[in-house]
């Protein structure tokens, strides 16, 4: 048993043993969990995939004369930002598209620009056009504002993501006879391909499946800067079915995270477009796992063969919100490049970049080894499986008489 305080002492002295989750799997396999837990102090994880529930809020500072954007309108490079906050605070979501985007009018739509791209451009230091209107008040007389700005010109810019880091996710297939354009990518007809989205053995919440060390207040790598876990993410569903090792067999836990956009690095945060679906943001997250005991090492030693994901038909089950799962496939199969469904062999594509996940885990390992990043004790636990919480559907209702 080690405390986080003891591990931090070692980090300060440059004596902590830090390995990536990929390396830890090998160490546990060779030496067993008890020896691995004694030898290793910190395991670093990483993930880099499209995460739609991502956003930023900005606070511009006040122009002279002042304007009350709050209650008015705001566009950033033509993309609508939410202006229902104070005078110069606005909120921009990753999936927002300009009002003149044709959407899926010419199916499948291209969705060539939107919130995710504005966020990426800001991180890369580019100038963005701010266009705001307001009704004008005695204290905020200006009715229009048009100006270019970059991150260094404004007071605050914060990445705030209500749901990231999905613990396990669907494998998407298409049972119909037409091409589908989804948030899981293009799905060819008649089970022509299968797409999944996970960093597997590097995935933060697959390595800490019971939220044993990750909790509210956990300091993390967020898109090249430092961020924090601030809550469980939306649709957090810890009560799903699990393997004997405690790893969820269905989409389960999620995290809400926050961090200073000004610290971030464009390599680890990217705007993205799914043809026929929309715009999103590819987010890079790395979470350190303090090896406080053997349990932590044991979870880090669960191999790909013992983790599985549900195969879901995106031509009917998903859009109709039916619970059917066609099959369960192991992550070993998914990472092999093909899965078998009945007697059909299906070629597998990944939405999550393993190369980038590895780069993130290695960067975090370097930060900790160099004493630049210390670990945190969670302020509060995330709701675990003991709560029985499972995300529920929305039932359409009439007004109560």
């Amino acid at each position, binding site marked *: 048993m080690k405390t986080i305080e003891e591990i931090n002492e070692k980090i300060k002295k440059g004596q902590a043993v830090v390995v990536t989750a990929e390396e830890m799997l090998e160490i546990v396999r060779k030496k067993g969990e008890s020896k691995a837990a004694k030898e290793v102090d910190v395991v670093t994880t990483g993930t*880099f*995939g*499209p995460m739609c529930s991502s956003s930023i809020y900005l606070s511009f500072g006040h122009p002279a004369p002042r304007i009350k954007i709050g209650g008015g309108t705001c566009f950033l490079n033509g993309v609508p930002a939410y202006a229902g906050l104070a005078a110069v605070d606005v909120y921009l979501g990753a999936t927002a598209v300009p009002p003149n985007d044709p959407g899926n009018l010419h199916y*499948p739509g291209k969705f060539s620009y939107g919130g995710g791209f504005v966020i990426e451009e800001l991180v890369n230091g580019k100038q963005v056009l701010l266009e705001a209107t307001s009704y004008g008040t005695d204290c905020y007389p200006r009715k229009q504002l048009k100006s270019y700005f970059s991150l260094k010109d404004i007071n605050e810019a914060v990445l705030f993501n209500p749901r990231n880091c999905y613990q396990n996710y669907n494998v998407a297939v298409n049972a119909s006879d037409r091409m589908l354009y989804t948030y899981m*990518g*293009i799905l*060819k007809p008649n089970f022509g*391909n*299968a*797409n999944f989205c996970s960093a597997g053995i590097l995935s933060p919440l697959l390595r800490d499946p019971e939220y044993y060390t990750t909790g509210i207040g956990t300091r993390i790598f967020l898109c090249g800067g430092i961020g924090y876990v601030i809550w469980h993410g939306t649709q957090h569903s810890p009560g799903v079915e699990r393997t004997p090792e405690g790893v969820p067999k269905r989409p389960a836990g999620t995290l809400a995270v926050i961090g200073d956009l000004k610290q971030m690095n464009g390599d680890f945060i*990217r*705007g*993205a*477009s*799914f*043809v026929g679906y929309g715009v*999103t943001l*590819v987010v890079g997250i790395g979470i350190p796992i303090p090896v406080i005991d053997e349990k932590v090492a044991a979870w880090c030693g669960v191999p790909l063969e013992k983790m599985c994901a549900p195969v879901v038909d995106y031509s009917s089950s998903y859009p109709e919100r039916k619970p059917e799962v066609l099959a369960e496939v192991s992550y070993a199969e998914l990472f092999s*490049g093909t899965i078998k469904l009945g007697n059909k062999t299906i*070629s*597998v*594509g*990944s*939405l*999550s*970049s*393993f*190369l*980038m996940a*590895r780069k993130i885990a290695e960067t975090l390992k370097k930060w900790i080894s160099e004493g630049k990043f210390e670990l945190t004790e969670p302020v509060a636990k995330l709701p675990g499986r003991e709560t029985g919480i499972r995300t529920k559907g929305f039932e359409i209702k009439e007004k109560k008489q």
Partner: protein
Amino acid sequence: MIISERVVLKFPKELVDKPTISALVRKYDIEFNILQAQVLPQKEGLMVVVFTGEEKIVKQALNDLKNQNVGLQRLKQDITKDDKICTHCGVCIGLCPTNAFYYDQSTKKVIFDYEKCITCMLCVKGCMVRAIKIKF
């Protein structure tokens, strides 16, 4: 030796309404497979074609096209994956019908093998960061 040559053909306006390809396959013993075609009256036409046949004969046929003033480019030069943009996620790997994309197993980089590409364009549409571009 039997070869398959993938080419992008640009037809000048005055050739668009002529049965150039039909005439070509009658004259030479070759097979053709049209992968992409954009032919509009009074406009420059564009076609991506695979010619298959005896190496010598395919070359003669291509020369014949050039002499008819048809613009001719080997296809592989027109397809690019920009590794500065690519995140190496591998969504293209599952989409590609000819396995032209694969992971380098040690680095986990997504590699594009031009030789296997048939320009079906699925990867261009499917790439979420638009790292794959095709220029005619």
